């Protein structure tokens, strides 16, 4: 399991360019910051009010006034800035975040995303997710390909949408997929899997890129 998350986080990290402003969701996406290629420095935005967030605070050295959006004590890097929530979401909605990386319950071939509610079961609220996926220049979904055998990449989402037509890329332990006008295209495959296995783990039609490559991580 840890290995799968590491594969995904490492691959996503390669999507980021030096100087990118990035918002990382809670959980797996947070790991992406640990695998940035050499020479790539990104600026982490935390929607509760930080530009230039650093790593988690060392135990015993927490500043209780500095948390991230997951309510963890964090640090800041030189050149950081604090702001209020209206400014924060102005940055997000205004297209000033180059990439947001987050998990999903379901993604479909239109690039629709469902990741905030399971009606009657889990109603945590959307937090900042709806704004982030609508506003960020690039939306990368980082998740396991299936959930306990259940498909997550679908013809049409069955759960309520977080937003419609927003996902640009999906990175799973099986490969890398891009959302194109024609549907979901597999562009890279983890050599541990066959194309057929990826197809089986994907409910919707999967276009295989003519230039399909091995997934780098």
């Amino acid at each position, binding site marked *: 399991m840890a290995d799968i998350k590491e594969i995904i986080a490492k691959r996503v990290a390669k999507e980021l360019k030096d100087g990118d402003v990035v918002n990382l969701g809670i959980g797996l996406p947070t790991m992406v910051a640990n695998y940035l290629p050499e020479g790539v420095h990104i600026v982490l935005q935390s929607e509760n*009010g930080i530009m230039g967030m650093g790593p988690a605070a060392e135990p015993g050295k927490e500043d209780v006034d500095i948390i*991230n959006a997951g*309510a963890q004590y964090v640090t800041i890097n030189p050149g950081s800035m*604090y*702001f*209020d929530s209206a400014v924060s979401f102005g940055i997000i909605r205004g297209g000033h975040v180059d990439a947001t990386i987050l998990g999903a319950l379901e993604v479909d071939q239109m690039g629709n995303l469902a990741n905030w509610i399971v009606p009657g079961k*889990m109603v945590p*609220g959307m*937090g900042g*997710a709806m704004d982030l996926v609508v506003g960020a220049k690039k939306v990368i979904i980082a998740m396991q390909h299936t959930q306990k055998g259940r498909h997550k990449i679908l013809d049409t989402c069955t759960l309520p949408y977080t937003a419609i037509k927003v996902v640009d890329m999906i990175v799973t332990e099986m490969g890398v997929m891009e959302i194109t006008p024609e549907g979901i295209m597999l562009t890279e495959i983890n050599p541990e899997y066959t194309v057929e296995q990826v197809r089986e783990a994907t409910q919707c039609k999967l276009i295989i890129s003519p230039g399909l490559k091995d997934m780098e991580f």
Partner: protein
Amino acid sequence: MIDKIKTADEAVAVIQDGASIMVGGFMACGTPEILIDALVRKNVKNLTIICNDAGVPGRGVGKLLTNGQIKILIASHVGLNPEVAQRMNTDVEEDKLECILVPQGTLAERIRAGGTGLGGFLTPTGVGTIVAEGKQVLNVGGRDYLLELPLRADFAFIRGSVTDKFGNTTYNATTRNFNPMMAAAADHVIVGTCNIVETGEIDPNNVVTSGIYVDSIVGGEKQWQI
């Protein structure tokens, strides 16, 4: 100059059953606990609370929830306080909580609109989702937007790091979050602050919230662990 400094109990004395209150804070970081505690002691009921989230049990608005004081909660995220789901699903009518979920950016902007005299704003957030239900959709430049309306409240609970006697306030680090917008969007504003200084001690370039918004100042707020 009018003396705005009060004890927490004096400051919340004006709040009655059924009031709406905006409470600053993000997961209780930047929530004035000293005011929340006074409101628990006063034990007013049927409150409408507007806050980014439900805090956690024993912190922030979580205390009001545990004490059964909240009737309606308007928030963007309630997942880290399991009491919300319990109260939403309870069969005991008088304990029942109504929870209205608003995307975080839209919540911040609606409060800003409420404080700045705008009649609403167009946001792309929520288009095509259940958030859009019942809302007007306007197309501008070929893109659909939801018309979102301003949000105001009777009271605001603001958490300052440094506040001068006029009420000018600064916020340290991520305690800022919703506090500045809320300070402008409520009829009566109470600041619970860590440090009270003389008027004029804060560099006018660095004041975030103007004292003109502030009705009462309560000192003695602390820096809390979540």
